[in-house]
C-alpha cells in the first residue's frame, strides 16, 4: 500500500511484549504467555473468537487488567514493573479507544477531548478546566481532523455512535500517545461508519507515526485496513503475519473448524425441537 511506513533504523522496538500471562481470580487462564514485537508504526489487528483473550491482552498492556506474569516494554521501559506513579506516567503515552466509546456523557465534546490531557495538568487546573492554550488549540485541530469541527460544545450524549467514537479517538490522540490500543472500536457501528473509522485510524497511524493494536471481529475489515494480523486462540497467539498472508487455512486455525457455523458453547440436543418448530411453521 502507498501509505506503508518504514521506520529508518530504530535502535529498539516501539513495543515488545514478552511472556505476557493473565490468570483471573476465578482461575480462568485468559492469557498463556504472549510475545509480540512491534518495531515500526503499523496497524496491528488482533482477531480470534469470543473469549480468546483479545481484550485481556490489550488491557494487560496498559494494566487496566493487572498481568500475572510477563513484561511489556514500551520504548524499552517495562510497564509491568512500574509503581502507581510510574504507571500513571506510562499511561499518558498510551491512548485507548473502546467499543462503547466510554465518553463521559454529561460533559461536552470539548471537555471529553481535553480529558485526554489530564495526565499533564494538576487537580485544581483540571477542576476549573484551565488547560494550557496549546492544548485547547490541539483539541480544536483534532476535532477538525476527525471531522467534528464545530461540535465542541455539544454534549457527548447528543452524538451518534460514529461521532462519539470520533470524540473517543480525539481524546486518545490528545495524549500524543506512543501507542494506540483499540478494543473493538467498530463493533457498535454500521458497516459504512466502521470503514470510515478504520480508514481514519489507518491514516492517523501513518500521519503520527504511532503504532496501533486493534481488536476486531470483522475479518474483512482487518484484512482491508491492517498492516499485520495476529490470530489468538485460547489465550495464545496462533497466527502473526502480514495482513495479505491470512489464508482460509489460517482462519480455520484461529477460529477452528466448527466455529464457522455454531456457537462455541457445548452443543445442545436441539434437532427434535427444531423439527417440531418446522412443523408449526415457526422457522423461516
Amino acid at each position: 500500500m502507498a501509505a506503508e511506513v518504514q521506520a529508518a533504523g530504530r535502535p529498539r522496538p516501539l513495543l515488545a511484549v514478552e511472556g505476557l500471562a493473565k490468570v483471573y481470580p476465578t482461575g480462568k487462564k485468559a492469557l498463556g504467555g504472549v510475545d509480540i514485537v512491534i518495531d515500526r508504526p503499523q496497524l496491528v489487528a488482533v482477531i480470534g473468537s469470543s473469549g480468546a483473550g483479545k481484550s485481556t491482552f490489550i488491557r494487560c498492556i496498559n494494566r487496566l487488567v493487572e498481568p500475572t506474569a510477563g513484561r511489556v516494554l514500551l520504548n524499552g521501559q517495562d510497564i509491568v514493573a512500574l509503581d502507581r506513579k510510574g504507571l500513571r506516567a506510562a499511561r499518558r503515552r498510551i491512548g485507548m479507544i473502546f467499543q462503547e466509546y466510554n465518553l463521559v456523557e454529561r460533559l461536552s465534546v470539548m471537555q471529553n477531548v481535553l480529558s485526554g490531557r489530564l495526565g499533564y495538568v494538576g487537580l485544581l487546573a483540571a477542576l476549573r478546566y484551565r488547560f494550557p492554550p496549546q492544548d485547547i488549540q490541539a483539541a480544536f485541530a483534532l476535532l477538525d481532523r476527525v471531522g467534528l469541527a464545530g461540535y465542541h460544545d455539544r454534549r457527548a450524549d447528543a452524538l451518534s455512535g460514529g461521532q462519539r467514537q470520533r470524540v473517543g479517538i480525539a481524546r486518545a490522540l490528545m495524549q500524543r500517545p506512543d501507542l494506540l490500543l483499540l478494543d473493538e472500536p467498530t463493533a457498535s457501528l454500521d458497516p459504512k461508519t466502521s470503514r470510515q473509522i478504520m480508514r481514519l485510524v489507518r491514516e492517523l497511524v501513518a500521519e503520527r507515526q504511532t503504532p496501533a493494536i486493534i481488536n476486531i471481529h470483522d475479518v474483512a475489515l482487518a484484512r482491508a485496513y491492517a498492516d499485520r494480523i495476529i490470530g489468538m486462540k485460547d489465550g495464545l497467539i496462533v497466527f502473526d503475519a502480514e495482513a495479505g498472508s491470512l489464508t482460509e487455512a489460517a482462519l480455520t486455525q484461529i477460529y477452528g473448524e466448527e466455529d464457522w457455523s455454531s456457537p462455541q458453547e457445548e452443543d445442545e440436543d436441539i434437532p427434535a425441537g427444531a423439527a417440531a418448530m418446522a412443523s408449526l411453521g415457526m422457522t423461516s
Partner: protein
Amino acid sequence: MMAATASYPRRWRAPGLFGSPGRRLAFWAVVLAYLAWSLSTLNIDTARVLAGLPRAWTILERMVPPDFSRWHLLLTGMAESIQIAIAATIAGAVFSVPLGIAAAANLSPRPLYLAARAFIVVGRTFHEVIIAIFFVKLFGFGPVAGLLTLAFSSAIFLGKMLAEDIENMKPGPVEAIRATGASFGQTFFYAVVPQVLVKTLGVLIYRLDSNLRHSTVIGIVGAGGIGQTLSASFTRYDFDFASAILLTIAAMVAFGEWFSDWARRRLR
C-alpha cells in the same frame, strides 16, 4: 411431523404465589389464627375506648379557633426549626461525601469499604427520635441537640445514597479516564461526579425537605425548634395554641414538599 407437535402439552399456567392450593389454604389459616390470637391478647378495653371518644371531642372543640395571638413564639420556633433543617442538611452533605466514597465498593479498598458500610448500618439502626434523646442527654435541651441529630442522620442517609449511586454508575468512562493517566482525584471529578451529580442533588433536596419534617418531631423530645413549643403547649393544655402550631407546621411541610418537587424537576 404433526405427531411430534401433538405430543406437547397445550395447557400452561403462570405459577401462583403459593405454588399449590393446599399451601394457599394453610397461609390464610395462619393469618386468621394470628389475628384472632393478637386481638385476644391486646386486651382492648371497650369501656376505655368509649370514654376516650368524648374527650377527643372536647380537645378538638377547644382547638377550634386556633390562637395565633402568640405569633412571635410561633415564629421563633418555626425559624429555629428551619435553621436546624438547613444547617443539618449542609453539614450532613459535607460529611456524606467522604462516607459515600468510602462505602462504594468500586472505588474504595476492601477494609475501608467494610468499615464504612458497618458505620452506615449502625447509624441507620436508630430512629432520629432515639438519636435526639441521646444528644439531648449529652448537650442538654435546645437546638444544638437537634442540629447534631439531623446532621448525623443526614450524613448517614446521604452517604448511603451516594455510595449506591457510585456503585451503579457506568464503569466505562471511569476506566477510560483512568487509562489517560489521570490521578484518583481527577478520575473522580471527571468520570464519577458527572455521572452522579444530578441524582445526588435531587437526593439532597429531598433530604432538606424531610429534615424540615423531622425537625418538628425531634423538638418534642427537647431538641429545639417548633416541636418543643408544640409539646410545651400540649402539656399546658393550650389546645388552641397547639392547633395554630399544627396548622403552621402543615403549611411549612406542604411548602417544603412543593419546593422539593419543583427544584428536583428543574434539575433534569
